[in-house]
């Protein structure tokens, strides 16, 4: 049984693309056949984050318009042979594709892949409608900021209206030091406001920036964010994994070690 998951947030810049890349790579590490679809037509960047930009020949719009077969447009990942990317078109816009075409495309991919991840554009317009049209379930990404949470709330409402009822929350870029000082909302605060099941929290980790710049997802590495993303993948597969203790590495000991590292 294949599953189609849309990664969405409403607000831009909260980490949809990073999440798609890392969850996709994580599921591939767990021996699932995974395809990532970048639905952000005109502003593609999943290929950049995956480090696959130089391999693009055909794209999503080419497939939909029948300029090529799906197989020709799919790009195999550098590291994981069972992970593929269907890149978005950069020179077109969201109106080049409609929800019915997305459904048809995804249905074709269902036969061969265990997981189909749709990287949704920011906003609630056509791009969003395209991305959610074919989805079985949704990951709503938010950061612990009021604006992101307000948008996430709107998105959850829209997902419900479109009868996507399996919706999970991912709290991204959490800074435990700020939460402790009371300057940032905690996971519990966010969870209480949005009132949907939490699938995981990812700390604000500079390793993410480094991995994005290198074009290699960090999932599965021993960085805190890498572990958090791996846990999320396990939970997507239905396993029970306790929430990662995010404070662990920001404790006194790590700061102490950090001091030495800097010198």
């Amino acid at each position: 049984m294949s599953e189609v998951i849309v990664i969405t947030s409403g607000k831009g810049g909260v980490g949809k693309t990073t999440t798609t890349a890392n969850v996709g790579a994580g599921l591939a590490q767990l021996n699932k056949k995974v395809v990532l679809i970048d639905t952000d037509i005109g502003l593609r960047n999943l290929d950049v984050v995956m480090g696959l930009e130089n391999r693009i020949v055909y794209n999503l719009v080419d497939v939909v318009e029948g300029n090529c077969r799906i197989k020709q447009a799919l790009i195999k990942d550098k590291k994981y042979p069972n992970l593929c990317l269907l890149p978005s078109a950069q020179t077109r816009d969201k109106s080049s594709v409609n929800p019915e075409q997305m459904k048809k495309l995804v249905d074709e991919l269902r036969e061969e892949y265990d997981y189909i991840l749709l990287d949704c554009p920011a906003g609630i317009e056509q791009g969003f409608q395209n991305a959610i049209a074919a989805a079985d379930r949704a990951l709503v990404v938010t950061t612990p900021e009021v604006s992101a949470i307000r948008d996430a709330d709107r998105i959850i409402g829209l997902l419900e209206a479109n009868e996507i009822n399996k919706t999970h929350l991912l709290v991204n870029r959490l800074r435990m030091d700020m939460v402790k000082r009371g300057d940032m909302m905690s996971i519990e605060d966010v969870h209480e406001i949005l009132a949907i099941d939490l699938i995981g929290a990812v700390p604000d980790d500079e390793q993410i920036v480094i991995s994005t710049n290198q074009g290699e997802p960090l999932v599965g590495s021993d960085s805190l964010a890498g572990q958090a993303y791996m846990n999320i993948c396990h939970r997507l597969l239905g396993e029970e994994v306790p929430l990662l203790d995010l404070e662990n590495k920001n404790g006194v000991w790590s700061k102490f070690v950090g001091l030495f590292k800097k010198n």
Partner: protein
Amino acid sequence: MSQPVILKSNPHGINLILDKTLPFAELKREILKKFKESDRFFRNAKIGLSFEGRQLTPEEEYDILELISQNTSIEIVCIIDKDELKDAFYAAKIKEFEENRAGKTGEFYKGTLRSGQVVECETSLIVLGDVNPGARIIAKGNIVVLGSLKGNAYAGAAGDETCFVAALDMDPVQIKIGSVIGRSADKGPLLAIKNRKKTMEPQIAVVMEDAILIEPIIKGLFKK
């Protein structure tokens, strides 16, 4: 009025707009003049006629009809009643009925309203769920939220300021009752979240001296 008699066509015939002050005999002359002028245009037409601008007795109406049928080739099929007083009377009755209905009957909405969602209702509204920031509920009657009211609520949307808004957990962005608006205190959004009440306290908002008054619902509140 510059012209004592005006002819105005409508989908069913013509409106005869008459001067209020002119003596009836003179008015009749003016009407005749007007119809004679346009007789060629109306030749053998079958029309409905309605009177405007002046209250006519049945006799006067009859007089005018006689005048037209004797002097022109127009055939008047019927008289369309257009009575502003009656209209206003009916409108007032309908409004009164709707207002009564708004306060006395209600609708239920089950589920949480998220940002961007709007529920509108002709009567009173009871929400079984939360109303999140960015969501709006609008009712012509009262509003009761069996959950947290954290968004916007507008009761008495037809203008009735005796309506109320009640919630098990009252933390709205804005409440409007009739034409009176109350808004939440100015505090940063993070503080609002951090300082939110841990326990629920049912509260009710009413209009008192042109302001929204919110008070806790405690035993004996409604005995006053």
